[in-house]
């Protein structure tokens, strides 16, 4: 027997120690330096500034309806969106609220909110006129022009039934849920518009969480005092997600079963649609809580194969499901293959899944400093974005623990947590949070995150929804330091929102590409325009759009402007 053995026999059982720390969970140890130290090489500059409600005019607040019963939906919502509902070229804002249901009767009426952009940094509440109040316990929002009339429509996920609001094009919406057949009974969370069968129309994927109702509530808490805390969802039964095929006549067909989607029982929070294997078909990555994540590989002919665990994105490196919540997809390292990101709860770390080009992924969170920085964090809204317009895709994470009593129970874990910003250096990510402004040290109960350039300056701004609190609107100052070109893609043969498009551009020595994915983040929806960062370069040499199937057309453009948004309509061969 070696002396090594004699030692570890005295370490109160190595296995117990490892379990207690999460296989020598020393991440907690490395977390603090990674999170709180300021690298001398990084200049400190405010990247995002908070726009107060006095300036924005957004006085709406999310109300969770926190009750002694600790109903799970109370702590997980809600989402938010940037959308241009009136097609005036300025991003408006939509916010989702709670509402009446079997376990909650609001003491005063609650409603969602639609704020029209006044084009001066302020917004006006137009909810009542627009008729998009919601009618149950709201969760998320997905924006997509499902009928191709040029006006974005709204799908609002709720418990116990969701809503499809058709945009009438005159500033009002109509609830067409019943006619469309997309009520998705149950507890719906994130939703994604994408064209899974390449017929040029946007279909709808809806995440479903557990089998939940007032009658099925279980007790989690202190047995002596009777005080409840929010349950870990492992004790509730999983339910299958929904996939609705767009029939092109304002109706949808539930194809959950025949597509294979419904065969996997989910506890789904987040979803993103992207062509992960470059086969021209949109796949789906779905994060689950206490159930393995799903990677629905689109095999064509309307069929999906679930390959999450085998592909390396289903469970932790220890072979166990985590609490997958926020999600996104982007080709952060520009190798031509879309990578994935997943946020989890504290002690689990988040994962940056690098696409190995063979339907396999490798978790690159640790080498990029993301694992240790997120050791004590719980992540919801998140998004890849080039916040500083240098051409490299960065990463923004919104955090907050789901249990508001966690601080009594777990040392070092907070209910309200700051956002994190990881800057892509071209060689990997570095934690730029504390160099990027006071918002990155402000504790938030963040849930949704939407990206959108509300002031049209080419620097993509942020909207963060909070649980039981006001939303946080953040103006991007960093992106203004570099040059940019914004594009709005309009599909004709391809789906009108161009979900699945690839845009490649050359600016001097810089060649970059971006994929337009469907969904991503958590319960939220984003500015449909793409912003191409140029750094200090002052010219775009060329730009190529590869339209999604069934088009597949490639169009190349030159003589492009910079510092403004242009619109490219598929097949017209020009921009305007």
């Amino acid at each position: 027997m070696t002396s090594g053995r004699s030692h570890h026999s005295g370490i109160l059982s190595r296995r117990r120690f490892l379990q207690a720390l999460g296989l020598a969970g020393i991440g907690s140890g490395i977390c603090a330096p990674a999170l709180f130290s300021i690298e001398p090489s990084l200049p400190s500059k405010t990247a995002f500034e908070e726009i107060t409600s006095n300036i924005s005019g957004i006085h709406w607040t999310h109300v969770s309806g926190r009750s002694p019963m600790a109903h799970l939906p109370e702590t997980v919502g809600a989402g938010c969106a940037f959308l241009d509902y009136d097609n005036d070229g300025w991003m408006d804002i939509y916010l989702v609220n709670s509402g009446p249901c079997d376990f909650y009767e609001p003491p005063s009426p609650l409603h969602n909110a639609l704020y029209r952009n006044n084009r001066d940094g302020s917004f006006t509440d137009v909810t009542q006129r627009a008729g998009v109040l919601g009618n149950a316990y709201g969760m998320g929002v997905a924006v997509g022009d499902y009928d191709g009339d040029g006006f974005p429509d709204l799908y609002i996920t709720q418990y116990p039934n969701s809503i499809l609001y058709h945009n009438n094009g005159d500033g009002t919406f109509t609830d067409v849920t019943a006619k469309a057949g997309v009520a998705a009974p149950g507890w719906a969370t994130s939703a994604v518009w994408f064209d899974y069968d390449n017929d040029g129309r946007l279909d709808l994927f809806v995440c479903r969480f557990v089998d939940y109702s007032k009658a099925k509530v279980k007790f989690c808490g202190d047995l002596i005092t009777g005080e409840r805390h929010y349950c870990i969802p492992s004790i509730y039964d999983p339910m299958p997600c929904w996939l609705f095929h767009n029939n092109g006549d304002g109706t949808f067909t539930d194809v959950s079963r025949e597509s294979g989607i419904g065969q996997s029982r989910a506890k789904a929070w987040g979803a993103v649609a992207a062509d992960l294997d470059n086969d021209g078909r949109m796949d789906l990555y779905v994060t689950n809580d206490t159930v393995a994540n799903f990677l629905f590989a689109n095999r064509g002919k309307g069929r999906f194969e679930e390959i999450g665990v085998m592909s390396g994105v289903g469970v932790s490196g220890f072979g166990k499901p985590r609490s997958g919540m926020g999600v996104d997809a982007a080709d952060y390292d520009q190798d031509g293959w879309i990578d994935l990101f997943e946020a989890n709860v504290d002690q689990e770390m988040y994962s940056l899944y690098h696409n190995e080009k063979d339907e396999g992924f490798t978790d690159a969170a640790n080498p990029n400093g993301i694992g240790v920085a997120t050791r004590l964090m719980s992540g919801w809204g998140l998004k890849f974005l080039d916040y500083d317009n240098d051409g490299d895709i960065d990463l923004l994470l919104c955090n907050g623990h789901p249990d508001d009593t966690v601080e009594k129970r777990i040392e070092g874990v907070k209910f309200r947590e700051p956002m994190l910003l990881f800057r892509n250096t071209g060689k990997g990510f570095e934690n730029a949070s504390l160099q990027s402004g006071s918002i990155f040290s402000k504790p938030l109960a963040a849930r949704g995150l939407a990206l959108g350039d509300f002031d049209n300056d080419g620097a993509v701004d942020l909207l963060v929804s909070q649980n039981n609190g006001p939303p946080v609107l953040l103006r991007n100052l960093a992106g203004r330091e570099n040059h940019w070109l914004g594009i709005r893609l309009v599909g004709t043969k391809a789906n009108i929102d161009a979900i699945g498009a690839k845009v490649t551009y050359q600016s001097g020595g810089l060649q970059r590409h971006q994929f337009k994915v469907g969904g991503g983040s958590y319960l939220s929806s984003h500015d449909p325009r793409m912003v191409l960062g140029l750094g200090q370069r002052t010219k775009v040499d060329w730009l190529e759009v590869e339209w999604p199937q069934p088009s597949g057309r490639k169009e190349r453009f030159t003589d492009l402007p910079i510092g403004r948004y242009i619109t490219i309509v598929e097949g017209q061969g020009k921009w305007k």
Partner: protein
Amino acid sequence: MDSVAERFSKWILIFGAALLLGSAGIAQVTSKTAASATSSGAEGGINLALKGRCSEALPILKKAVAQVTDKKLKYDVLMSIVHCAMGLEQTETAVRTLLELSRNFPQDPEVLYLSTHYYSDLALRASHELAAIAPLSPQAQQLEAEAFESQGDWDKAITQYRMILERNPQRHGIHYRLGRLFLTKTPADSENAKKELAEELKTDPGSAASEFLLGEIARQSGQWEDAIVHFEKAAKLDEGFTEAYLALGMSRNSAGKFTDAVAPLESYVKMQPDDPAGHYQLATAYARTGRRQDAQRQMALQQETAAKAPRTLAQP
């Protein structure tokens, strides 16, 4: 050095204090059975024990226990023996009987409860003896440091461990404990942990545990090559160190060295067939080296074992 026992006793005091409650509970349980007992020797012994006449009861019970075949009666007899032996401070009898109870009734909450309290009481007594006999010994100081550690009083534990090293710089295990402690703190201090673990390896080059933790620090930072070196050393130093094989396989997988990952992971799943981690990592290694069927078999085992595994603290 009374403080050794005092401080050490803090974390087990609650067990000792609850011992009386536990005994009362046992008596209550026993009495229910005894009430229905007839005049057999075993039942007579139980009745004597219940009346507190343990000196008389114990020989009767010890003699009777071998002859009792009824499982419930045997349980009551053994419980009565433990109860009396504890009261009469017949430690050997109490321990032996507790072990027999554990063997025969391994799932019984009362047995587990009583064992916890009694072994804690023994530990408390031993710590008092250590404090009385050798208060300045490194063992006494280490016990005190561990007591601080168990209470989460990291700074006092560190001070105590440092005192041991001042007097006995070559003592094995102290730098390791300091390193581990730095990692356990919230927020933890990986730089100081690395220094302590390196020091441990200077005094004890055979410390597989120190190599393992150095490997983990590297792994968590994504320094795969460094992690691999440390895990290889840990597994070499201690061939029975199962987690070292898993961590080595994981790190090799992360580094893209899938072929090299297979061997340690195959060893690991043989040693720990119930751990989904091993099956998952081995499935990954197989899949990435073209062994599709082997991968699917391991993936099935991963799902099977993950479903059975209790939900513990989350793992990254």
